[in-house]
């Protein structure tokens, strides 16, 4: 632990902790835009600049690690600096709400009372449209904080997004400006999740009113698609009671807010009319009829026992779904080996 001075108060923090986090724990909120705990310190947006005694100019709290005896001030001139930086970002922020996602820049602007004196004549970037149906990108909302690209390089390791060009022509775009579908992208939506402005957004939610995501009710649950067991938040529209999107929080232990394409985007089945909601048994008429679990399971058991009697236990093999958890897989192999008497069991995850 080290001790340092934060706005006149003596505080302590583990050595090497980033100042922005240490300050937050002590109740001092320093705004950030380009910072993301999952990524290496970058220090690009400069929103988190604070005064550090002895430093020739303000330092970014998102990249500065705490040191014994350092003297930090967050409430001096850097407050004015923050408003100016916000004004600057607004001077090319043509599209504040592409898809109803929270926009940290407009939030900050409101809080600081910042307005752009003008829109830059070269604010408009090359338009971008993507033929995938999950993720959209609106260059007019992008503040070039580079979070998405760094996520693709440091976390997802897909590098399917690039920070392209220099000067006013610089932009963020899938590699070579191709569609996401023609890059290494797996549509995990991770880059989307770290975007602070909603420039990358759920394409299927385009046109949602600003702040739409905040109006949704989040229900925390476990993704049902595979044994990794990622923690997700189902975002439910309180009016229609339908799941609108899936998010995840960096604080969730098993997946730290990261998801794959299934967990993030494949939730439509929940409300699908074809979804099975109870057991069905095929009747003599050849059609499927609703049945109770007991009926259905007994029928399946009887069928399997019949096969075993006629052809022996080795004629039965079990293929476990990738969606099973460890515990369920354990039970399934007990069923195979102990009850049915076969070693032929496999999981489709292994292929």
């Amino acid at each position, binding site marked *: 632990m080290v001790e340092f001075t934060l706005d006149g108060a003596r505080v302590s923090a583990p050595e090497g902790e980033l100042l922005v986090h240490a300050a937050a724990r002590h109740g001092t909120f320093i705004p950030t835009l380009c910072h993301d705990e999952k990524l290496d310190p970058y220090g690009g947006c400069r929103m988190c600049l604070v005064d550090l005694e002895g430093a020739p100019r*303000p330092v970014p709290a998102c990249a500065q690690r705490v040191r014994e005896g350092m003297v930090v001030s967050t409430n001096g001139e850097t407050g004015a600096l923050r408003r100016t930086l916000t004004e600057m970002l607004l001077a090319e922020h043509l599209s504040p709400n592409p898809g109803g996602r929270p926009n940290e820049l407009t939030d900050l602007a409101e809080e600081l009372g910042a307005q752009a004196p003008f829109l830059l004549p*070269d604010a408009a970037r090359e338009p971008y449209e993507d033929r995938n149906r999950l993720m959209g990108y609106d260059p007019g909302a992008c503040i070039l904080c580079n979070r998405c690209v760094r996520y*693709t390089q440091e976390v997802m390791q897909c590098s399917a997004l690039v920070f392209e060009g220099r000067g006013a022509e610089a932009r963020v775009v899938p590699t070579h400006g191709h569609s996401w579908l023609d890059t290494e992208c797996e549509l995990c939506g991770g880059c989307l999740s770290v975007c602070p402005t909603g420039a990358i957004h759920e394409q299927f939610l385009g046109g949602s009113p600003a702040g739409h995501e905040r109006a949704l009710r989040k229900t925390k649950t476990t993704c049902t698609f595979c044994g990794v067991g990622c923690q997700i938040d189902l975002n439910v529209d309180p009016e229609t009671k339908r799941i609108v999107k899936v998010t995840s929080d960096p604080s969730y232990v098993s997946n730290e807010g990261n998801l794959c394409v299934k967990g993030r985007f494949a939730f439509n089945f929940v409300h699908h009319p074809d979804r099975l909601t109870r057991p069905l048994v095929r009747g003599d008429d050849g059609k499927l009829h609703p049945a109770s679990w007991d009926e259905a399971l007994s029928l399946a058991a009887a069928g399997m026992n019949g096969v075993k009697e006629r052809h022996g236990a080795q004629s039965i093999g079990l293929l476990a779904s990738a969606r099973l958890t460890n515990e369920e897989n354990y039970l399934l192999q007990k069923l195979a080996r102990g009850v049915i008497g076969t070693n032929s069991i496999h999981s489709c995850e292994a292929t």
Partner: protein
Amino acid sequence: MTPGLDELPRERTRLLDNLGWVRRNVGPVTPERSDALADHMNIRRGEVAEVVSFYSYLGQPVDVVRVCTGPVCDCLGGRALLERHPGAVEVPCIGHCDLAPAMLRGDEVVPAVTYSTNHGPSIDLLGPDEPREPPSLEPDRIVAELEASGLVGYGGAGFATWRKWEAVRKAPGPRVVIVNADEGEPGTIKDRYVMELRPHLLVEGIEVAMAFAEAEEAYVYLREEYATARERLGAALAARGLPVTIVTGAGSYVCGEETAMLESMEGRRGMPRLRPPFPAEAGYLGRPTLINNVETLAHIPAILRLGGAACPRTRLWSVSGAVARPGCYEASVDVTARQLIDDYAGGATEEIGAVVPGGAASGIIPPAALDAPLTREGLAPWGAGPGSAGVQVFPASYPVLRLVRETMRFFAEESCQKCTPCRIGTRALEHVLHELEHDRPAMPGWQLEEWLVAMEKGSICGLGQGAPVPLRGAMRHWPELFAPLLQTR
């Protein structure tokens, strides 16, 4: 698909070299070629693509015609030259300001290179150039002589050389030496003169630096536009059999900033790093790295031979613009602009309107300052500094607002886009100046002041921090041009 590509080295640090090779031997780096190289080097395609897009030249054919519209060339007809060459690309300062308006046809400089220079006591650009055994002194003595000589970095920042050298020695090896030969500062041609006329002298300086730092490897980061320098320096290095690699840039001013240069050399976009750590502690591949400008190193042999205190303090002044004999002259560090113009460069060709003393971010001084010594102290009262000693003389007929706007356009185009104040500030200032040229205030003066302060205090590197300097200089010396800003509140 791309013949010869399989032979290329696969280390990430060779990416820029490899891209240059593809451009020279195969053709402009297209997305397909970029992907092929990425696959060969086992780097993800997106990471190569974003590097390619960072540089101005990788997508251009080698024989492309490039016309300079840097401030001096703009003033002396660069735009008309551009119009006469359909298909030519417009580029910022190409380091041949003494030939303005200058252009490049592939590697060939048009008009043909001539040298206008003089004898001097330290570098002596006209002196005989041949391989020489470098002076060999104990490290402590070297530091002491450097301190006694008062040598400061001539790359632009003016940092005391002995301090940097001492810091590097203190950090544990292995250490690396890098020569900054990117010379991108508009109006600056001196490093080219050194490399073309005294390449062996630079090699001597490099040898001293390598021995001092006990460095087993050294690099020269050389701007792409300097084909002749590449050839002559390469030959001089070979003559001494030194393990020095020339890394050729690909068209990016900010790569002259030392930490951007390190990123560029490591195969990433040339975006400056946060400091600390400084390169002397953790530079190239995390090793302690001694980075010096070409001219800085070229002064060191004389300093060590004559002794720091005895060696006359000179520097190379690039003089361009409205003078009779634009060129590069070795003169005392406290020379005045008037002396340079009259005693070295053959006098002004037109009534002088403004002088930029040392590169884009050094400031702008009015004719009244012509007798100020071009030192940090001498120029401070004029809101300027000596920078890289690229003295650009602008005639009264060239509007100051245009000069500042062109300079700001240069910064905006070269900004790496990492940090907000520079990324947006430079473009905003270009806009403000453009509006002023039409007597329109784009923003109130008090707010402009806040934006300038945000750039100065909030930018990561010298590009954004220094971009307001020329504007402030103009506001101070030609306040009438900025009157519209004061009328708004």
